[in-house]
């Protein structure tokens, strides 16, 4: 069955969202409407509708003019196996010794790797982002240098991929927390899917705000792959929960934000050991003063 899309671009988020709403009221009703930020630094937004019959060119032209958008481009959607297409695109991610994959790539696990099964679903941390990859690579590097984490926490865990990575290569269970209940449910499902029940404990918490997180500390390794401001807010708590000589692996920081985060953590006695960049994103490996 032929289906159609009609897409346009414009340079303002508010107008883009308003155009998306206007599309829903077209005479030939779209079955779906999307408003997307174009990730090329252009500041443009893409607005489109999905139709089961060909939309009216004149109506689209009027809408484009009313919202100061570029002319709509109407295309017939190719009859494609979309499930298969997405699976081909969601390729496994290799980060150091870790191999993060979806179930459709279960037959591709390289020998000697540490496989982590993560479906791209309702929690961040699929491995398909520079921040997650950077944290896994930082973990791999620390372990390669002889560090053995005895007590690991993953704050803002998303899928819990980082906690599971640590629990795979270190002797003791890790604890993972997220402020988002859905993410915690996804994390728990991932722990089960990776046969790691008992190796990673998942709790719902904002930062370190959970009795289990307090009770288990201090930690010799803490991951926090969140965003700049939450990381800055977390710094005092990080200092109090990190053991002397313990490491913090932080990400979710844009390159231009890294100095500020480093400065705040340094003021808490947690100094930068290493800085890695993947795309626009920085991963910081920091160490608390004291210890061996």
């Amino acid at each position, binding site marked *: *069955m032929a289906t159609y899309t009609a897409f346009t671009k414009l340079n303002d988020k508010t107008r883009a969202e308003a155009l998306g709403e206007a599309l829903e009221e077209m005479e030939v*009703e779209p*079955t*779906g409407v*999307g408003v997307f930020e174009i990730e090329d630094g252009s500041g443009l937004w893409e607005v489109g509708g*999905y139709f089961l019959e060909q939309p009216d060119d004149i109506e689209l032209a009027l809408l484009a003019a009313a919202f100061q958008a570029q002319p709509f481009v109407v295309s017939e959607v190719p009859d494609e196996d979309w499930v298969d297409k997405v699976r081909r695109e969601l390729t496994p991610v290799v980060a150091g010794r870790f191999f993060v994959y979806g179930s459709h790539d279960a037959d591709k696990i390289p020998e000697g790797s540490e496989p982590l099964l993560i479906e791209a*679903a309702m929690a961040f*941390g699929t491995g398909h982002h520079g921040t997650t990859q950077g944290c896994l690579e930082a973990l791999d590097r620390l372990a390669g240098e002889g560090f053995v984490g005895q007590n690991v926490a993953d704050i803002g865990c998303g899928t819990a991929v980082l906690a599971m990575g640590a629990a795979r290569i270190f002797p003791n269970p890790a604890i993972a927390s997220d402020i988002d209940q859905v993410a915690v449910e996804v994390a728990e499902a991932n722990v089960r899917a990776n046969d790691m029940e008992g190796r990673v404990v998942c709790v719902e918490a904002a930062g370190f705000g959970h009795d289990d997180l307090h009770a288990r500390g201090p930690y010799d390794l803490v991951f926090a792959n969140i965003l700049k401001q939450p990381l800055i807010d977390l710094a005092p708590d990080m200092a109090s929960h990190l053991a002397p000589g313990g490491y913090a692996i932080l990400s979710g920081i844009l390159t231009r934000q890294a100095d500020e985060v480093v400065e705040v953590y340094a003021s808490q006695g947690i100094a930068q050991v290493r800085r890695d960049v993947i795309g626009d994103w920085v991963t910081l490996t920091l160490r608390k003063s004291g210890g061996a």
Partner: protein
Amino acid sequence: MAKKLAGKMKLQIPAGKANPSPPVGPALGQRGINIMEFCKAFNAKTQEMEPGAPCPTVITYYQDKSFTMDIKTPPASYYLKKAAGLKPVGKRNRPRGAEKPGRETIATVTVAQVREIAEAKMKDLSANDVEAAMKIILGSASSMGIEVKG
């Protein structure tokens, strides 16, 4: 995790019946979102609803292809059509209202039915109480040519 927004889309999907056919397949597939994981999660979340009820669903997706969904209640027109015993028409299973709203009545519903609809849709309406929500539903009924009695 460092959620970085990549885009949002709104699709109308029948409760319990998400599958890779349009609009879900092309809309998600063109953005590289895991269609089967989405369908599984959507169908699980809507399993208590009336099967096939059209649910406007806002899908927010992130740079690493993870996503969240906000499933809204079916449109007021859907509930009104059901209450009035009108048959669904159109590709989106929406009822067509009167050709000349205000001058033509195509069906009737009761005030009690309007209240039920208002209560069902409360969470998605910008209304402080059921009475305010009922006014919104009455407006929808009027625009569809549905008369409210009783």
